[in-house]
């Protein structure tokens, strides 16, 4: 199975405005100093004196560095990770050099030594913070995935149940089928969406979804399916297609007074899977529904979490049609 990128942003500088980051840097550097002194000085009393002396020399440049990083944090966030690290280390060295020139006489060691120590301290703190971020981010990514999991509109559920109720007396068999479709749909909606599913499963799901919408909307919904070249073994995140089809019906068919044509096309081109969902574009105004692109942003973000930069999602108006295109890598279960 293809790896799922758990960490949404593996290469990011720590947030220097975060109190936790600042505290870790402060404590970390002082512990480093203490460790260095204990290695070189066997006598506890002298070691303590030396530590007090050393911290009085370390603290001014350390606090100055943290203050500057705090100020520069928004700007540093936009710099690539490794360049950012280099900048942070350079900044710390510069501050260490300037404090050394002020208190030069009292400080032990010469300027090159001070610079090396400052650079080492900065590098160790950065490395520690990087490990820390890495350790915690999978949980973060998972929490985000769950928050991003598709949520069906409640009005769809209640309208569907109402439609089933209307069938129970007139057409019990169709009522049964519709309830089975609803069960499958909600089973998928309530399941964990962390795993990739086969395209065949996802297509099956949206066919069931479409059957329910067809019952509710009758002639007003005309579905076309173009799946002849669909790579049914392709793996993709669950519940990517269903919310898109739901949107197509909700925005493109339900508010309209005539018949709405909705097209679903899935095809493979080389090592890519291309999905296209089209619906009528209704002029904003009478009866149309405000969209906030929540669903699209949500799906785009989920595709990013799974495929990183290899996935594309575009939505556009083309004449009287609204089209959503997805372009993801073609991967099969290993």
């Amino acid at each position, binding site marked *: 199975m293809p790896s799922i990128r758990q960490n949404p942003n593996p290469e990011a500088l720590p947030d220097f405005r975060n109190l936790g980051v600042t505290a870790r840097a402060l404590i970390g550097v002082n512990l480093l100093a203490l460790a260095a002194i204990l290695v070189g000085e066997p006598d506890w009393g002298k070691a303590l004196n030396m530590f007090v002396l050393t911290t009085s020399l370390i603290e001014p440049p350390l606090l100055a560095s943290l203050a500057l990083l705090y100020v520069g944090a928004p700007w540093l966030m936009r710099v690539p990770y490794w360049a950012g690290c280099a900048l942070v280390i350079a900044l710390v060295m510069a501050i260490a050099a300037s404090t050394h020139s002020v208190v030069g006489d009292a400080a032990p060691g010469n300027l090159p030594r001070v610079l090396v120590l400052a650079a080492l301290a900065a590098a160790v703190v950065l490395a520690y913070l990087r490990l820390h971020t890495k350790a915690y981010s999978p949980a973060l990514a998972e929490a985000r995935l769950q928050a991003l999991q598709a949520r069906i509109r*409640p009005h769809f559920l209640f309208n569907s149940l*109402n439609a089933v109720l209307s069938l129970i007396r007139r057409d019990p068999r169709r009522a049964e089928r519709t309830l089975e479709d609803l069960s499958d749909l909600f089973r998928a909606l309530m399941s964990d969406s962390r795993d990739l599913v086969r395209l065949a499963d996802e297509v099956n799901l949206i066919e069931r979804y479409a059957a329910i919408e067809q019952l509710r909307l009758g002639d007003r919904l005309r579905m076309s399916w173009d799946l002849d070249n669909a790579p049914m073994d392709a793996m993709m995140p669950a519940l990517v297609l269903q919310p898109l089809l739901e949107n197509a019906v909700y925005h493109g068919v339900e508010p309209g*007074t005539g018949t709405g044509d909705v097209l679903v096309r899935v095809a493979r081109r080389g090592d890519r899977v291309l999905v296209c969902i089209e619906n009528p574009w209704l002029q904003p105004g009478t009866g149309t529904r405000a969209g906030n692109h929540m669903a699209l942003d949500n799906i785009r973000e989920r595709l990013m979490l799974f495929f990183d930069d290899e996935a594309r999602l575009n939505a556009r108006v083309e004449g009287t049609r609204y089209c959503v295109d997805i372009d993801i890598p073609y991967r099969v279960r290993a």
Partner: protein
Amino acid sequence: MSELRVFIADDEAPARARMQELLADIRGELATRVVGESDNGLDVIDRLPGSGAQVLLLDIQMPGMGGIELARHLNALEDAPTVIFVTAHDRHAVEAFELNALDYLMKPVRTERLLAALRKSLAAPERDVRGHAERLERAAGGAREFFSVAERNRIVLVPVGDVLFLKAELKYVTLRTAAGDHLIEEPLVSIEREFGERFVRVHRNCLVARSAIRGFERVAGGSDEEPHWSVVLEGTPERLPVSRRLWPAVKGVLPEARE
């Protein structure tokens, strides 16, 4: 016992069928007759007034025109039916839309709830028309897409986008479109508040559609009037005077307006 005349408005055929079943189920307790069905809001506006309906069971989400706006236009009718909203929204959404101040049923509808709502409509005392209109306005949460004019037993809708200007005269407001005039009974102040940016007030008694403004003309003073600016509109030769007090605000409407 006479039957209660009911009109069912819902865009989903199964939902209308279900409502018919429910009405049949409660026939023993309350006799009803369905005098009309419709699947779109504009069609309801057309057909409801002539149907003799006493109660309108109205879905909130409908193509053509949503249920809330529809109900606002029905208020103009002399003998408007009682409106009972029917919605598939959950309770949370109902509260968010401030619909809880109105009569509503949630889908799927239970027979007991339907019966209670219909009985309530029968027993309804003199309706608090103004309060009802205000609740609807709050529930709508936005501006209407049409103005409505009640003509005898008919509702004429005028798309808000067609309106060039509105002018208050005595009790009525004249609403001018390229096609002609209509009289409505709404205070300019509330129209100005509802539509916000769409109209700009040029005079104590006049709101003008921003999009219709083509320019301004300086009118030289005569024996009985002071010199003033007037608005030149697209679609009508009429010039509307701008009051001196409002001119500073009005002239900003067109960026190229000359001083």
